[in-house]
């Protein structure tokens, strides 16, 4: 079946270091969404990418959608303690009529003291 692989599962960084998480789909996606879930909280929408090769920025966060619309990345520059949480990607297959998003397993960002 359709899958979205997200790596790494965990990433430990020192505060101030950069962080990147990657998602790769087994099929072409019509769009991809990114969510952040703080510890003990629920996923919160960050952004949606639709176009091939699209790059969007939110302050220190940079989101990219691959040219083939099968992969995506989220890069955080100079991490802060407020960035701690799990980041999920969720892709929508094209021509999918059953409303389902396909979720990556998430990457947990841990800031080392």
């Amino acid at each position, binding site marked *: 079946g359709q899958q979205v692989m*997200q790596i790494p*599962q965990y990433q430990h960084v020192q505060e101030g270091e950069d962080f990147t998480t990657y998602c790769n789909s087994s099929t072409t996606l019509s*769009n991809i*969404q990114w969510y952040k879930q703080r510890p003990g*909280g*629920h*996923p*919160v*929408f960050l952004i*949606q990418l*639709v176009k091939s090769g699209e790059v969007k920025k939110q302050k220190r966060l940079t989101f990219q959608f691959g040219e083939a619309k099968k992969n995506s990345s989220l890069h955080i520059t100079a991490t802060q303690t407020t960035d701690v949480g799990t980041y*999920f990607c*969720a892709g*929508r297959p094209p021509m999918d009529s*059953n*409303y*389902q*998003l396909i*979720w*990556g*397993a*998430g990457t947990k960002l841990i800031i080392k003291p």
Partner: protein
Amino acid sequence: DVKVTQSSRYLVKRTGEKVFLECVQDMDHENMFWYRQDPGLGLRLIYFSYDVKMKEKGDIPEGYSVSREKKERFSLILESASTNQTSMYLCASWSGLGNTIYFGEGSWLTVV
């Protein structure tokens, strides 16, 4: 401000008990979802509903059922709870293609 409310934040139930998890949204969304979230497995779709009284199975429907009698309310039912259903359950609501999915706060269920 959008709101998805899950009735119970933390529950402890015994094996074999029937469990109801309630979810209410105030955004007039057609689509509602129930996910479970387990460490390392991300979000897995249990059931979803795209209209009142309509439901479809997600990836892991076994051991669960759902009810959507009113547009704003989507209930997840564990007919006979088992220990492998100990998990965090997330309800979500969505208006349609291209729009954001909104999640509830989550319900932490422990089955002993």
